[in-house]
């Protein structure tokens, strides 16, 4: 219960602080009235627009109005098309979350077995080759990799569509691009944790009771190695729920990252504010979920419990 209150307090503070800073930042970015009225508008027309949207009031006044509306989840309407800002965000977010979940699933499916395999032994030509490849991958910026994949599979071989969000074939390149960006880091962490577990005293105990290599891997090493990897998985997922701006732009993926770019360029700040509001909530929930998974996996985080009696 106390824990829940602390979470709620942290969450409220984070949300208010972020939204406040954001409010003043976007007002520094430019004059939305010019965007709305068009470049040829007369000063009188601009004034009319400012009055209509309330831009003529003082910043503090505007902030208080914004804040009182935000409490009711009202972010106003998009300056671009008049649609409710929050609706626009909620319409596009599923595409982003879909990309994030698919990319994470692929990332886990590749990184855990590969990391576990690499962590089992140091030597061997296969492992050395894999490690070299992962190092190279790790040095690649995500967008370069995405462009290379597009060039090869969409432009060159013409196997897959390069843009859009229409059916499984169009998902392949974006999902693979994001997963290849995430995987090297996770592989490294799983490898390091697997190797550490193999060197641990509890694995020596398992050997000393006659446990075979397969049980040692699955029942002794991996539970500990994955426990160490959950923080990275959580961080990677939190990074993705903030919107994969570059990837969504390259693939014209109709997600929140793509919407964020367009809205920012158009000074469509109701939409920008709604996006950030949703992102803050998503990141917070991701961290909460990560913590819950860690508690589930690690009995030490669940508190001392009541198993022991007197010392001795």
């Amino acid at each position, binding site marked *: 219960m106390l824990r829940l209150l602390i979470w709620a307090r942290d969450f409220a503070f984070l949300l208010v602080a972020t939204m406040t800073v954001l409010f003043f930042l976007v007002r520094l970015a430019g004059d939305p009235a010019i965007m709305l009225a068009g470049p040829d508008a007369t000063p009188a027309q601009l004034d009319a627009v400012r009055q209509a949207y309330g831009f003529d009031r003082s910043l503090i006044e505007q902030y208080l109005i914004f804040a009182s509306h935000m409490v009711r989840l009202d972010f106003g309407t998009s300056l671009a098309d008049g649609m409710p800002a929050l609706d626009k965000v909620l319409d596009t977010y599923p595409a982003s979350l879909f990309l994030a979940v698919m990319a994470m699933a692929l990332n886990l499916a590749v990184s855990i077995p590969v990391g576990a395999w690499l962590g089992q032994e*140091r*030597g061997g030509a296969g492992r050395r080759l894999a490690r070299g490849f992962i190092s190279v991958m790790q040095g690649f910026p995500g967008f370069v990799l995405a462009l290379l994949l597009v060039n090869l599979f969409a432009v060159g071989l013409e196997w897959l569509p390069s843009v859009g969000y229409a059916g499984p074939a169009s998902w392949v390149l974006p999902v693979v691009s994001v997963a290849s960006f995430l995987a090297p880091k996770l592989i490294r962490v799983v490898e390091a944790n697997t190797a550490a577990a193999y*060197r*641990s*005293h*509890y694995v*020596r*105990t*398992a*050997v*000393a*009771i*006659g*446990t*075979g290599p397969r*049980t040692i891997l699955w*029942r*002794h090493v991996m*539970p*500990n190695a994955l*426990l160490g990897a959950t923080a990275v998985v959580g961080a990677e997922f939190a990074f993705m729920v903030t919107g994969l701006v570059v990837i969504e732009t390259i693939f014209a993926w109709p997600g929140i990252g793509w919407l964020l770019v367009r809205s920012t360029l158009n000074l469509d700040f109701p939409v920008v504010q709604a996006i950030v509001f949703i992102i803050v909530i998503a990141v917070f929930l991701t961290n909460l979920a990560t913590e819950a998974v860690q508690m589930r*996996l*690690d*009995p*030490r985080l669940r508190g*001392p*419990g009541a*198993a*022991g*009696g*007197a*010392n*001795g």
Partner: protein
Amino acid sequence: MNGPVNDTPILAIRDLQIDAVPAGGAPRRLVDGVSLSVAAGEVLGIVGQSGSGKSLSAFAVARLLPDGVRLAGGSVHLGGQRIDDLDEGRMRALRGGRIGFVFQDPLSSFNPVRTIGSILIESIRRHQRLDAKSARTLAVEMLARMRLPGKDACVDAYPHQLSGGQRQRAMIALALANGPDLLIADEPTTALDPTIQLQILALLKQQTAGRASILITHDLSVAAAICNRIAVMHQGRLVESGPAAQVLTDPQHDYTRSLLRHARLAPAATGEA
């Protein structure tokens, strides 16, 4: 002059050689020419400072050696049967079965995300044909015999929920779960508080009856508390061995004498406990 109980030793190590084999480097000898034997009912103390090869020599019995360390020569017999050349599968059947181990640090030696009972049950089911329920019953029985508290004797406790002494009791239960002929305890009291050390030593002494036991320690007073015979190792070699009383009262080697001066537990506490 050797064992008080039986002429055929349970364990016989002859001319043991252990090498460190670094990747791409020349092998380095860590243990050289160690011969030891332990009879049923006998507790052999192997004493020496860290790096003396005492733990390696004992662990080599079940080929429980770290990466990059290997048996380079000599022979190991258990109950008259040669075991150092067994394949891995047969050796695995001995580990935890006929040979039980107690390690120094019971916290790091228990898997942090597994319950004490699950490890015990894993060992019991590996070596005895028991269903899950009977294995659990036996696990509770073993833990209760080592005086772990509670109705279920902490069988469902995670290692961090127990005290240091309780964890070491659980470790001893694990070592004895399948009724081993040979018990090897590596610094079993070093990580514990002094008062708990004496309790654990008393428990070990009680549990060594009828089997062959090896107690590895850097502390002669710990060996004095429960060992019939003491072997002193220094820089990979055996420098002195004999009945405990003789080694303790009339040490022949300078190194043994210096160990005696540094014995930790007070003599009053270490007499025949």
